[in-house]
Structures are given as C-alpha cells and as structure tokens.
C-alpha cells in the first residue's frame, strides 16, 4: 500500500514537473509567472535527487555505510572530524555558494528566460550535482585527497600538472572578473561606495572585538557587524544626498580599480585575524540570510516575468555579450549548472568531515541542487524587470551610446521599449544618479532583487534601501572571494616556488609574502585594468574566459571521475560522467574557437585586434594596449584548449588501455576498514 502511494506521489510530481517545464518551454508572446520556474525547479530537483542520484549511488558508486571514512579513521580534532551530516551540508553549501550563480544567469538572461532556466535545471541534475557527488565520494575513499592529487594518481602526472595550472588560471581570471563586477557596481555610486568602504572599519572593529573583548564569539560579533552594516546602508543615503560627501565617495572606474587592487594586496599581506577573517564571517552571515530572504520573497510575491522566453539576441548580436546561444549561454552560466571549482571543495575540507559514505549523496548532490536553486532565483530577479530596463542597465555605452536619449532610442528600436524618463525615474527611486551602462550583472540583479523585496517587504518607499542592500550584499561577498582567493593563490604560488628556493615557500617569511601577494594582485589586476579600459566593456571578453577556464577544471574533474569509474569495473555506467564531459568539451572547444578566430570583432579576440590595427595611424597608446590585450586573451584561450586536450588524451589512453586489457584496472583507494560508528549509533 505504502509503495503504491509513493509511486503515485512521485508519478504526480513527475507530471506536475513536466507540465511546468512544458509551460516554460512552449509559452510564447505573453509573460509567465515566476512560480512556473519555481514549480519546475522543485520537481526537477526532487526527481533528480530521489531517482538519478540514487541510481548513481547504488549502481556506480556502491556506497557502503559500513566502510569507515577518513573523518573516523584519521580523526585529529582539526581537519579530520566526524560531523553531523546537516552540519557538513551547511558547511559545504556555504563554501560553494558564491556570486557566480547570481551574476552568470543575469547576463545570460539577454537570450530570454528559457535557455538559462533549461541549462540550469538539466546541467545541475545531470552534470553539476553528479560531478560534486562523485568527486566527494572518491575523495572520501582516498583519505580526503585533493582533485589535483587524485588527477595525478589516477590519470598521471600530466593530469595533475594541468589541474594545478587550471586552478591558478581560474583563480586569476575569476578574481579579475569579480573585481570588475564590483567596479561596475560602485562607479558613480556614492551610496554603494560609502557602504562598502564602511565594511572595512566594521571588519577591523570585529577583528579587535574577537581578539580582545569576546574571544571566539564569532556568531555574536557577526550579528553585531550585520547591524552596523545595515546602519552603514542607511547612512549611505544621507551621504548620497549631501553634495560635499557625495563628491568624496564618487569615484571613476580606474580609481576604483586601483583602490580594489590596494585592498586585495592588504588583505593578502595583513594578519588574517585583523581584516580577512572578520569580513569572511560578516559576508557569510549576510549571504546565508539574504539567499533565504530572496527565496521567501519570490514565493511570497510570485512576480510576472516580463522578459520573453527567447529574445532576438539568440543569433549572437546581444548587447550584454556577443555570441550565439550555443555555446555562450552554457559558458556564461557555469556555477548554477556545473562548476569545476566545486570539485576543489568536494575534495577539500568536506570529505574530511563526512561520517558515513552514504551521506555523500545528500551533501554532494544535495548542496549543488541548492546552488542551482540560487541560480533560478537570479534568473527570476533579472527577468522580472521590463526588458528595456534590463538592456539599458546591462548594455555598454559602446553599443547603445552615451546619451540617455540615444540609449533609450537604440534599445526601443530592438523591440524593448524604454524611455529616458523611465530610466531617470528608476535611478531616482533607487537613489542612483544613473543606471545606464551599469554592466557586469550586479546592478541589474540588485534592481531585480530590490523590486522583489520592496514589493513583498516594505513597499516602494524602501526600494532605494533594498537596492543598496543588494549592491552591498553582492560587493561584500565578491570582495570576500577577492581577498580569500588572492590569499589562496598566494599560498599555491608559494608552495610551487618553495621547490625552487626553500625560503620562498615559507608562508611566514615577509619578503615572500609581499612578493607573491604582489605577483597575484598584478595578475588579476591586469585583467581588471583591461576590463576597465576596454571600450567594448571588459566583462564581454572576461566572463567567457572565466567560464572556459572554470569548465576546463570541470573537464579535469569529470576525466578523473570517468577514469575511476572505469577502473572500478563500472564502464557500462561511465556515460553518467562521460555524457557531461562530452557536452563540456563541445561547449568549451566551440567557445574557445569563437573567442579566438570568429571574424566578428565583438566575439573574436584576433578579429578585434585586426580591426583596431587597421584603424587610422598613428595608433593611440590606448588602442595599442587593447590590441595587445586581445592577442594575449587569444593566447590564454589557446593554452586552455591545449590543456583540455592533454588531459583528455591522457585519460583516453587510460580508458582504452583498461578496456582493451592492456592496463590493469586498479583503483588507488585507502584500504577498507569497518566503521565503529554503526555499533555506537545503533
């Protein structure tokens, strides 16, 4: 009886989910309600978790609840620690949820809500969640080894080396892109700049409070910091309304870029307890609270999506970024669907905390599902705006023109009506001087989020406050990625340099700290500066580069996973990771080809360099720099493609060798030890 009821329940869920997906997919010409996306996502995630992840767990991974995990065998009270599964889940989700699933879907909304929604749902259920789950389990079975170590031991030295280079490349490009998003969000915005500037002294105060006044009371001081940040948001309004103060906190993009580079260097080189750790705690507090609030707001308001299902820009002529729907929609949305970066976390701290193998399914597959749900929220936030407003905010001046009337006329000419007066009224409502050309995704997301919050909590009068809360929320945790990322990259460079000259590897030796911090900041600072100076809006070229490098890492992770699955004699199920791998290779290779060789100068780096070089002579120094940047971007893309190819060839050699019997199929797992937790827990 129970079985029949369960069957009927799941069958009904499948029918409802299919209906919601069909409604999203076939509805044309009239706006749909955001609840369709919420229902479709809920059903897809529930079915994916109940059936697909269970299939992977049972048929391929053969999760064994009796096998002791490294948390139990190697427990040391520090890294290795048996932990409640919900606590591990929270820990894992807090580490994987960054700004990527918010910004990528907002940018990809230029194609309409349909492509992004479908990719986020299918990509997460069949690729991203699977990647996170299998890598977590494989790391658990190898004493919590990192992805790089697993690549080295299972694929070979080339795999390990490429994984290392890919991690550094991703970090640098990610940091450049993240900094550029903050610059675009804060330029000509005294309110936002003041609020973010205030988080620095607040963080310093928290650091001193934690160290001297109430040692270790992180939750308490984070709550205090949160209240102070809210006060800073409120105070920002008065700053923006006072002419002298507003001038003091109004910066151009290049000035902001320099300030952010100085901040990145300071965060990397200063003692961690003083600035970095308190900001990290503060941002986690804000992040978890805001994501929960946004989810509630969307369900409570269930707004209408004004963006069409598909826009005319699927042909590649989009103003937000150039390039056709394939492959660029799948490159732009990485973190909400599949992110190679997650493989680092699944093989980092999480496997060292898992109490039983069976919990990897909930933590690995489940947490990625939640991340994907955040991406769905971002799509909704972008698509609740009138499309004309969305394009006015996200289009660079190089495409739509500088003057408000020109920009409004251009966008209206595309079939998305908007007037200069509408944009002025919106800017006034959110307390900004202008909302034109605020590229990067963050301001558009902030407007959408403010719309949802103000309509469900507090009414129109609080629109400005919610907008700046959203800007602060994004900038705060993007800056956290920036400072923590700079520090992680510094450690990695120091590790590598330590092999050349031992003192350089010492993380407490100040000449090394300063030198490697400067090296990392200069690397991402270059991409930031390029983005600030690029007349076509640097995010256009940088975001695809980030997507390509992130998915390169996912390719490495899926190669490792496929190799291990084949070595486990489960080759007949290898399609579970081989399918996403093939898709990612197709996407990455096609995107790379377009970014390097497409004849359209808005897409191809080399084409843009050619067009600029053919301009009137003598070329200005700015033009010469942009030409050089484009050629360098093409070279970086080429190197990434060569690395993907190397990993694929190396992995394929392993697979063919094993399947033909020429190589021994031997996994390099830690030996089986029976758990004692089963008896203890009953």
């Amino acid at each position, binding site marked *: 009886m129970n079985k029949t009821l369960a069957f009927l329940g799941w069958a009904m869920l499948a029918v409802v989910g299919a209906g919601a997906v069909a409604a999203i997919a076939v509805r044309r010409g009239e706006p749909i309600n955001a609840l369709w996306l919420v229902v479709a996502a809920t059903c897809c995630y529930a079915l994916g978790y109940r059936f697909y992840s269970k299939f992977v767990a049972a048929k391929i991974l053969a999760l064994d609840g009796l096998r002791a995990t490294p948390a139990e065998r190697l427990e040391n*009270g*520090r*890294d290795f*620690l048996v*932990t*409640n599964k*919900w*606590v591990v*889940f*929270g*820990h894992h989700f*807090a*580490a*994987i*949820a*960054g*700004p*990527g699933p918010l910004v990528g879907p907002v940018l990809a909304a230029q194609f309409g809500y349909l492509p992004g929604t479908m990719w986020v749902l299918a990509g997460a259920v069949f690729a991203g969640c699977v990647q996170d789950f299998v890598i977590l389990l494989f790391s658990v079975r190898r004493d919590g080894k990192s992805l790089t170590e697993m690549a080295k031991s299972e694929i070979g030295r080339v795999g390990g080396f490429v994984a290392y280079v890919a*991690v550094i490349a991703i*970090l640098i490009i*990610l940091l450049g892109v*993240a900094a550029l998003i903050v610059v675009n969000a804060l330029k000509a915005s005294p309110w936002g700049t003041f609020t973010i500037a205030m988080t620095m002294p607040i963080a310093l105060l928290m650091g001193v409070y*934690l*160290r*001297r006044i109430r*040692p*270790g*009371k*992180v*939750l308490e001081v*984070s709550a205090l910091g949160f209240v102070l940040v809210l006060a800073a948001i409120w105070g920002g309004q008065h700053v923006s309304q006072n002419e002298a103060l507003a001038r003091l906190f109004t910066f151009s993009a290049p000035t902001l870029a320099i300030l952010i580079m100085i901040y990145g260097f300071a965060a990397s080189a200063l003692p*961690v*307890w003083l600035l*970095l*750790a308190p900001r990290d*705690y503060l941002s*986690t*507090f804000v992040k*978890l609270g805001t994501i929960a609030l946004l989810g509630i707001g969307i369900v409570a308001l269930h707004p209408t999506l004004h963006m069409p299902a598909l826009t005319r820009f699927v042909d590649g002529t989009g103003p937000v970024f150039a390039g056709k729907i394939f492959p660029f929609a799948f490159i732009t949305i*990485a*973190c909400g669907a599949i*992110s190679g*970066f*997650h493989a*680092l*976390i699944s093989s*980092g*701290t999480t496997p060292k905390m898992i109490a039983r193998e069976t919990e990897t399914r909930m933590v690995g597959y489940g947490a990625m599902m939640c991340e994907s749900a955040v991406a769905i929220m971002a799509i909704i936030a972008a698509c609740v705006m009138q499309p004309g407003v969305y394009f006015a905010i996200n289009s660079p001046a190089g495409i739509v023109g500088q003057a408000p009337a020109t920009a409004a006329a251009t966008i209206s000419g595309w079939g998305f009506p908007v007037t200069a007066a509408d944009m002025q009224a919106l800017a006034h409502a959110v307390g900004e001087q202008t909302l034109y050309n605020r590229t990067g995704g963050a301001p558009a997301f902030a407007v959408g989020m403010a719309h949802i919050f103000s309509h469900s909590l507090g009414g129109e009068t609080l629109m400005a406050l919610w907008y700046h809360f959203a800007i602060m929320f994004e900038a705060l945790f993007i800056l*956290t*990625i920036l400072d*923590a*990322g700079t*520090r*992680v990259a510094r*450690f990695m460079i120091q590790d590598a340099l330590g092999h050349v000259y031992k003192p350089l590897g010492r*993380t407490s030796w100040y000449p090394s700290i300063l030198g490697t911090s400067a090296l990392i900041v200069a690397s991402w600072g270059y991409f930031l500066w390029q983005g600030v100076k690029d007349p076509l809006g640097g995010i256009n070229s940088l975001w695809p580069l*980030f997507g390509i490098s*992130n998915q390169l890492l996912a390719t490495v992770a899926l190669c490792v996973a496929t190799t291990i699955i084949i070595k486990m004699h489960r080759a007949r199920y290898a399609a579970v990771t081989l399918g996403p791998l093939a898709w990612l290779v197709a996407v990455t290779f096609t995107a790379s080809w377009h970014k390097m060789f497409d004849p359209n100068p808005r897409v191809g780096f080399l084409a843009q360099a050619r067009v600029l070089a053919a301009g009137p002579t003598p070329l200005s120094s700015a033009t010469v720099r942009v030409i050089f940047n484009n050629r360098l971007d093409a070279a970086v893309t080429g190197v990434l493609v060569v690395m993907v190819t190397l990993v694929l060839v190396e992995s394929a050699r392993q697979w063919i060798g094993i399947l033909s019997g020429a190589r021994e199929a031997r996994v390099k797992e830690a030996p089986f030890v029976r758990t004692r937790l089963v008896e203890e827990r009953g």
Partner: protein
Amino acid sequence: MNRARELLRDFLATAAATLREIFDEAAYARFLSRAGMVSSSESYAEFRREFEQAKMRRPKCC
C-alpha cells in the same frame, strides 16, 4: 505534541550547530578542549595561528 516539540528542538540544535561550525566557534571549542585552555585573548590568538594556514587555504567558489 511532545514529538513536535522534540523535532523542533532537534532542528534548532542542528541549525545552531551548523552555524557554530560554519563560523568556527565549534573549532575554537575543540581547540580549547584539546589544548586544555580556557577562552582568553591569548588562547584565541593561538587558535587563529593554528587554524589560519588550514582555513585560509580553503578555496571558495565563484
């Protein structure tokens, strides 16, 4: 009714434990018990020193 209260208590306890773990309060408590110290600015400084390397090497996602 008792069952509901028990479930709520479990839920709140797990939520609090999750927050304490995410915010490193639990790690600090373990450090104090392992080192046989009481909470003070010196012991917190010692904890931060010990945990800095591991904590700050953790990658964070995009």
